[in-house]
């Protein structure tokens, strides 16, 4: 069942950066693209247990801090070894100055 949860304020994230959001025992990564758009994915790398929020956002790519594995955070697509499994993405909406994530 889908549920919209407030994750953060729009100003909480710098452009081309991300923050961690924990909810219901799960870790999410909330991104702000260089163009100021918001996205959300699972917060843990699909390769090994590493928090993507310690990684680097470059354009539409998130690089995992553990082994430099890269994903497109807009689509979740794994961009090459060592990441082979796509990230789960979550819908995001902005209302006022709050960012909401669909955690369903």
């Amino acid at each position, binding site marked *: 069942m889908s549920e919209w949860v407030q994750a953060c304020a729009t100003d909480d994230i710098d452009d081309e950066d991300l923050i961690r959001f924990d909810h219901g025992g799960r870790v999410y990564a909330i991104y702000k693209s260089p163009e100021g758009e918001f996205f959300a994915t699972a917060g843990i790398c699909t*390769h*090994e247990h590493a928090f993507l929020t310690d990684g*680097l956002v470059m354009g539409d790519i998130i*690089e995992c*801090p*553990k*082994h*430099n594995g890269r994903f497109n955070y807009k689509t979740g697509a794994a961009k090459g*070894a*060592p990441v082979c499994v796509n990230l789960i993405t979550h819908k995001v909406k902005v209302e006022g100055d709050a960012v909401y994530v669909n955690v369903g």
Partner: protein
Amino acid sequence: MTTTATARDYSLIGRDSELAVQSGLAAAEWYHTEIPRKTMKELMQRSDGPALRDTAIWFALLIGLAAGGIAFWGGWWAVLFFFGYGTIYGGSADSRWHECGHGTAFKTSWMNDVVYQIACFMVMREPTVWRWSHTRHHTDTIIVGRDPEIVAMRPPDILAMLLNLFSIKHVVVTVGKILLHSTGRLTAEEETFIPEMERGRVYRTARIWLCIHMVPIALSLALQSFIPVLLVGPLPTMYGAWYMVYMGFTQHAGLAENVLDHRLNSRTVYMNPLFRYLYWNMNYHVEHHMFPMVPYYRLPALHEIMKPDTPKPYASTIEAYREIIPAVLRQLRDPEWHVVRQLPATAKPYRPDLHGAAAAAE
């Protein structure tokens, strides 16, 4: 500290591999120096400029040294030129393999991939195999039975170490593996760290490499000259390997195994600008292991930030080897012994709770 020596099983499919998993050393949580996110973001930033400059110089050196070797062929000057050429080809290509394998040298992805493929060929490390092997090395650095890249095992195999000064063992083993991979098979150990979806790539690359390796051989035969095989293929990998080995041994040799703190199992060694250019700052090895997303040109800055939290760096490779050689020789008779790195008073202490049963017993 326990004094009962146990024979280590470094195989990835042996006893100690299972032991590492059971004792929580495999894919574990490692110590990290605390660095504010804002600072980390700045340190992680990539740009193409430094690597483009360094790679242009690198290719210019290769071409210039090769030209010199050819021009002076038959005389003693040629030996010097080929020595230099081999040092770049079989020696410093190691650092290019490493940094571009991490994807951190260039900001532009495909540039990392191109230099990675070239460097892999030069040091005879199959690109897909070694990408996964290096990934495992970073996950389980110097964890016995898990890390496929431990070069200084205990007790040390001195003969193997000496043979690898010229990459003899490495090249022979790699040729065997390339032949195996070209038939569509992996070794049992490789199956433990190369996922199935990547194996086709291994087989394809092995077949391509076999074809490429035929070219200098065919040219040498056709021209009745050693020059082609001295310039491309296993020979320059071998006669240039000394530099890679000299640098590479400083990374971990003689230090702790089976610990979850890179300050205990890695070295940072200060080097002169020439060495650092050839080694692409891999001498900042504690820093690199703790934060592999920081590109080589920002490792000195990371080092300065981490200094209060890390052991004193070695002043030079000579100082490092003054420790490494006696350590390795001592491990011949006492394989349980290792160098313990001391932390400054400003550092967070080592955490025995991270180091598993082996360290807890010390």
